[in-house]
């Protein structure tokens, strides 16, 4: 099977851009977390592509590390959202302007 590597990177760019649009446009923090998952997956796909391009296992090693980062990020992020929901009773990111930044 031959997949031109450019098409794979076009897929990576598309997925990453979709994740970024979701992260920037949604106000619900749960959806922002999901968009970050999409972006992380796009990065992982880039590493798998590079690994299959050079026929090395390094790409999959980095993929496993990305997977553990994503697991830790989701665990902490969802715990933060649960606390947020208890604290302000909402998931709206705009209600978190207490610091007036």
């Amino acid at each position, binding site marked *: 099977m*031959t997949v031109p590597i450019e098409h794979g990177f076009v897929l990576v760019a598309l997925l990453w851009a979709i994740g970024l649009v979701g992260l920037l446009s949604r106000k619900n923090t749960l*959806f922002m977390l999901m968009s970050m998952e999409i972006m992380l997956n796009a990065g992982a796909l880039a590493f798998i592509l590079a690994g299959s391009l050079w026929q090395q296992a390094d790409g999959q090693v980095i993929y*496993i590390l990305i*997977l553990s980062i994503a697991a830790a990020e989701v665990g902490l992020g969802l715990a933060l959202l649960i606390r947020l929901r208890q604290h302000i009773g909402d998931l709206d990111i705009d209600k978190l302007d207490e610091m007036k930044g």
Partner: protein
Amino acid sequence: MNIESGQLLFYVSGSIAVLASLFVVTNKNAVHALLYLVVSLLALAMCFYLLGAPFAAALQIIVYAGAIMVLFVFAVMIFNINQTDIDREQQWLTWQSWVGPSLLAMILLGEIVFVLLSQQNWATNPSSVTQIELVDARAVGSLLFGPYLLAVEIASFLLLAGLVGGYHLAKELPKKTTTQGGSQ
């Protein structure tokens, strides 16, 4: 250039991943968006398998589509998302406000695609992966616990920190600290 079945499968699962991700981003209902996210992750697992990485594909299904998505579903269950949340998301998703930026972004996307397609020197072999070979779990494991041992240790520290932090953040607050925090 004839299109083989594996190549066709790659394009189909890639477009499924893109479409499902689009639905995740534009969906108003959190549970529906989660279902589409699972579909997107499964399509990416199919891509990994077709690229000669069956171990990564299995991990994608077990860890991502299994464990992490279950975490999301439980969180959605705890959040108990109601109609006001859905209505507020609705006002950000009217299509009139998206036409102009989408048009400009499409031009930029076209430029990226053009640059990627006109690039002819990828590594040693031009323009394509000549023949995708299997990189099996044995090679990944021996590399993971050989040169990358320090990275594995650091990842384990990260997961431990995530565990402790998640426990600390999600546990019940004691009563007196909640009243103190509320008064400020």
